């Protein structure tokens, strides 16, 4: 692995899109190739590669850039500080960083096979299209050597490629130009001094890069996607927060004489109920998670409800958070109370796993079965008594919300939970 090109790295500054770069490098100078040595039991081919092809992808957030890619067969990671004029970057070969140190070898230290380095970059934009830059680097590079062993079993072995590592210091400069709105190219020249073998090497790199949408694996990317669907729905829904509709926990036979109730009379209040299934006409009517026990049946759960007689509408509470949304009373129906998913399958699985572990430890099948039964029972007790059943996953089955009520029945049910008390 050799130092990666600098211009594309610098161009990732303040880019929301991901930068994709393809580069071709040509190496010249005192390369170690063309020689062949024969020894009594082996031979060595000096065959340093004349070039490399690199593919790199960068993502950016302001002054920090992270990149990954391949330099011919070497996967590497690169990251660092970035700004319009100064950049500081470090890179490392993935294998030499994460795998090689754990291998037993003849090297005295784990880090004998390390490839990586650091580079300081200064960039000067000349105008809209052209930029120039200067680089200084120190690195541990890896290159090819071919080596074959001969012994009494294998006389003419094919030489195998082996890495040789050396320390390099050097510097260079580059020129970059925009090709069009979405792509650029650069030509980079770099000199490096091999401190171990006292060689001078030159690298000339042509780099072309463009931009594309980054893959959405970030937590905020995922959150934006999840929110987008509900934000679209919210454009057509009337919503409020539960601060504006105060919650009260008792069902609706409170007396109007207390000061507390006088206040809630004016602003309205949401009734907190046991988590209840509600069937809706359409999945766009809600910002809660929609379950479909059978296709075309859209069911949601809610822990808060109130009925506004004046507008013939119902306020329901979203699964999490403080958002309430309004649904027309004509387009909903009430269903069963929510039940938690059965713990039977889970209990059996935990019991089986407990048995498996116990068998390995004790070696006795009857004792392991007893231990497995104990483990299963323990988990069942924990989930049954230790956790609030309303917070667990709901039981969804085909008959859920299949019973339809008449309009009168629905109205009578809703009138238990008025938003405002009648005087």
């Amino acid at each position, binding site marked *: 692995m050799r130092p990666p090109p600098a211009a594309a790295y610098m161009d990732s500054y303040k880019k*929301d899109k991901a930068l994709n770069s393809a580069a071709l490098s040509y190496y010249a100078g005192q390369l170690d190739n063309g020689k062949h040595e024969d020894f009594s039991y082996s031979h060595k081919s000096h065959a340093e590669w004349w070039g490399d092809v690199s593919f790199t992808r960068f*993502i*950016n*957030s302001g002054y*920090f850039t*992270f990149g990954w890619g391949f330099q011919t067969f070497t996967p590497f*990671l690169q*990251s660092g500080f970035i700004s319009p004029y100064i950049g500081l970057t470090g890179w490392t070969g993935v294998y030499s*960083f*994460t795998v090689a*140190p*754990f291998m*037993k*070898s*003849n090297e*005295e*230290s*784990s*880090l004998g096979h390390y490839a990586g380095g650091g580079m300081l970059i200064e960039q000067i934009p000349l105008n809209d299209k052209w930029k120039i830059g200067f680089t200084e680097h120190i690195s541990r590079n890896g290159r090819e050597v071919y080596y074959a062993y001969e012994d009494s079993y294998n006389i003419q072995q094919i030489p195998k490629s082996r890495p040789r590592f050396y320390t390099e210091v050097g510097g260079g400069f580059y020129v970059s130009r925009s090709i069009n709105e979405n792509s650029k190219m650069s030509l980079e020249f770099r000199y490096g001094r091999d401190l171990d073998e006292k060689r001078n090497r030159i690298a000339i790199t042509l780099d072309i890069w463009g931009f594309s949408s*980054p893959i*959405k*694996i*970030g*937590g*905020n*990317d*995922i*959150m*934006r996607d*999840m*929110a987008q669907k*509900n*934000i679209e729905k*919210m454009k057509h829904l009337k919503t409020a927060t539960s601060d504006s509709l105060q919650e009260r926990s008792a069902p609706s036979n409170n007396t109007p004489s207390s000061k507390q109730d006088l206040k809630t009379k004016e602003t309205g209040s949401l009734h907190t109920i046991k988590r209840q299934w509600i069937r809706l006409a359409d999945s766009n009517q809600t*910002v*809660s*998670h929609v379950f479909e026990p059978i296709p075309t049946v859209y069911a949601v759960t809610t822990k808060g409800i109130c009925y506004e007689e004046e507008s013939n509408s119902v306020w329901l509470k*979203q*699964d*999490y*958070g*403080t*958002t309430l949304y309004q649904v027309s009373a004509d387009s909903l129906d009430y269903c069963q109370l929510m039940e938690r998913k059965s713990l039977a399958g*889970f209990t059996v*699985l*935990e019991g089986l*796993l*407990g048995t*498996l*572990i116990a068998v*390995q*430890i004790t*070696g006795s099948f009857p004792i392991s079965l007893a231990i497995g039964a104990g483990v299963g029972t323990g*988990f069942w007790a924990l*989930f049954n008594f230790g956790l609030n059943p309303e917070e667990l996953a709901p039981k969804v089955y085909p008959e859920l919300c299949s019973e339809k009520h008449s309009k009168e029945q629905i109205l009578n049910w809703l009138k238990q939970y008025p938003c405002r008390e009648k005087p």
Partner: protein
Amino acid sequence: MRKIIILFLFFASTIAWGGADNILAPSFVPQAIIAKQIAPGPTRAYTFGGIFSDCDIKTNSKSNIKYCETPKSLILKDEVSGTNYRFDVNVLSFLWPKTENKEGAENWNGHLFGGGLFLNVHYSTFLEAGISPMFTQWIGPFYIGATYALTFGHYFDENKDFSANKIAGSLNLGGGVMGFMSNHGLGFGLHSGIRQMQILNVDYNVKDWIFYYGLDFLTYSNLPLLDESNSKGHFGFLTSIDIGVHTEKHPLMYWAFSLSLII
């Protein structure tokens, strides 16, 4: 939560029996993420990890020749190695400063000088459990951390003829750096330090300090879209790789991975 327990038990039960156990103080990186509050709100980390340790006898030249070898009368192989899987969870945490805004914000960067004290419990394969107090403190993009593990275990030899109870302790001191990309909700970090490591079994116990370094990859959420995305709260998910390196005088080494859910 349920899925985490099932996954761990599944892994634990499918591991081939045998070999020595590793004692290593847990990593402070998940706790450092909690202390930074880059995902505002979460105070607990559930971590599953594996450790594979070895001893490079070729680099044994300058240390005691018995260091990498097991007593030959009991076990045939002559090099020490070990495997462990561990499940770790915070039970207590005390963070500073307090995070008032748990909803998040568009430009939320966490606390510049966030820190915390934690108490974790862990269970390792097989029949090993322990507690670990932890400390971590951020200074801008850098953090320092310290953890100590007190472990109680019941160990078997390879043939299951002998078993023994042992208590062990391990200290981990170090620090790290992390870059956060809140436009995506991604973080990348490096950490390193020194750790006490023990490879132990019924009849032997090899202990040394080991220098390690590691890579971290974090995905997290902190945008003020909890209501819009119908989420209970913000989260973080951290993947770490740790490599403990061997040198001329210290032939022990290890390779470890860990997955942490921060909620």
